């Protein structure tokens, strides 16, 4: 949260954020314009989303303009690719394997892969963590909450 409270958004953040908002609004318009618009008396399902989408486009444009105007704040946008990739890969593997391979392998994989987000990855520590977390999760979700997932199914 700390970075949010600091200086106002930089020009780049306004430009990119604004353009994304405009793109999002246009995409929504493209989809929602296929729904019946109805009349003011009987609003169709397309009416409300289209109004909101137009508002988003306008507000996005306002952000883009303020981004173009100011040159202030050269704070670069730094993506922590390591964290994004490790967590994304871990969650995808988990989602794919949970119902096919079972809770135990899915959880083990999620812990092992997502912990790669930490730059100094220590195999022993992570292995112990994975086993402990899996055991606890098995107890909580399979034994107590009884979710319909098998522990291991191969």
């Amino acid at each position, binding site marked *: *949260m*700390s970075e*949010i*409270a*600091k200086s*106002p*958004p930089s020009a780049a*953040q306004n430009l990119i*954020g604004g353009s994304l*908002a405009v793109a999002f609004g246009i995409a*929504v318009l493209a*989809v*929602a314009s296929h*729904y*019946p618009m*109805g*009349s*003011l*008396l*009987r*609003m*169709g*399902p397309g009416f*409300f*989303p289209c109004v*909101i989408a137009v*508002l*988003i486009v306008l*507000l*996005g444009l*306002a*952000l883009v303009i*303020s981004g173009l105007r100011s040159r202030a704040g050269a704070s670069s*946008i730094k993506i*922590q690719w390591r*964290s*994004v990739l490790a*967590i*994304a890969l*871990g*969650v*995808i593997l*988990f*989602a*794919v394997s*949970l119902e096919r391979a079972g809770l135990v392998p899915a*959880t083990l994989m*999620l*812990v092992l892969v997502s*912990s790669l*987000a930490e*730059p100094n990855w220590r195999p022993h*520590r992570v292995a112990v*963590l994975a086993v402990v*977390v899996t055991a606890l*999760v098995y107890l909580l979700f399979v034994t107590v*909450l009884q*979710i*319909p*997932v098998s522990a291991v199914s191969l």
Partner: protein
Amino acid sequence: MSFWNNLALGAEVAFTTQNLLYCFLGVTLGNLMGVIPGVGAVAAVSILLPVTYHIPPSAGLIMLAGLYYGAVYGAVTGAILLNIPHTVSAVECLDGYPMARQGRAGVALFMTTIASLCGSIVGIVILALFAPPVAAIALTFESPDYFALVVLGMTGAVALARGSPIRSFIMILTGMLIGLVGMDVTSAQPRFTFGISEFIDGISIGVIAMGLFGVAELIANAGQLRVGTVKASDITWRSLLPTRDDIKRSWPAIVRGTGLGSFFGVLPGGGSVLASIIAYTTEKQMAAEPDRFGQGAIEGVVAPEAAANAACQTSFVPMLTLGIPTDPITAVMLAALLIKGVSPGPDFINAHPDIFWGLVVSFVIGNVLLVIWHIPFIRLWVRLLTVPFDILFPSVLVLICLGVYTIHNSTLDVLLVLVFGCIGYGMRLLRFEPAPLLIGLVLGPLMETYLRRSLIVSHGNVLALAERPISGTMLLVSALILIWTFRKRAGIKVEGPSQPNSAARAK
């Protein structure tokens, strides 16, 4: 029924073994997740959301509410001892951490517990006294009034949100659109479902909240958060005791914080985060020696804490009586109640007096439990803070993934939480706040429904929306708020706490 009869009914509900258990579970887990760096109240409420599907509505609400104020209590521990800026406790770091460095962590922890208790109790009293009359007024509302109320809620959330109003406006509108995903109830037209059958019922707010607040936070903090060291043995019994000077400085600050918090909790878009920031700024402005702030001034710790807790309780007034969420957490709770077939609104207290008064009494019980957790058992939580983040974050991620899965037993939801996590992380990078999005998520469908109904009643006359005195006034106020907000450009410029977080975030 008189007030005391109502309280007796509430006590009857709250003191059942089941509800006591869920209250205990709620505050304890909330406290736990509040203490853990990188989780926080919204994620705590969302992770436990699926559990409420299997228990009665009163127990579910008691537990979720317990998670909320429990997390608010818990967050301050990390703020004081390790300078971990949580959403709800970011300002408590400013003076709490310096106090800890001066060896006065015990005093800070003790006094914040007292401040929390004071703020909460006043907040609970306000909830019990004012919710019924507010509901009575709201009973006279018709569709246009509700539409105007939702508009007011939306503009309030834009005006009071942190950061630029344009950004929060975009976020709230985006939330409204996401709220529309699924089958349109009036026309049976599926919207934005892209042929995916799971989307027909809409995207669960739990998935979105856990993605935007839980997964996004983990991505941002993984490998970044370097937690300092703290020893449980440093917090001795003796160190908890405040000096006479501490008490003299604290009590007026607690009173002011409680007042501000009670007020800002009711406002849409307010909630505990805003309340604590405003309480801090007010203390700093009123102080005889403002230089003490940032150096460990006890007023700067207790006032925001009292405010956050008071706001936390009073935010239930608009949520339960009007069905309008004021912050992301009440938005999630509102959605949970709707799923249980209980719709908060003007009828709520009359239709479900057991749930309402049971909740009120459970707040008192929960707050007493939290004081017990925080004074005799404080070392337990301090010890928890010594668990390194590289162990915590994969564990929290597992909890989130399985929690999401259990909502509908669907692996698609697990993938969606990742998608929303990445979106949330992107939003952080581009400085968009996720909080208004969650509010919009609940407000969007409400706004469409009321607009539709009003237009049918008025035969398609848009101007009729503003013709009733109540709706007209509320729309006028909304318009004034919007004009005022955008003219000020930066919104209400709360003196942003510039955070000295060298200890929490190492480069």
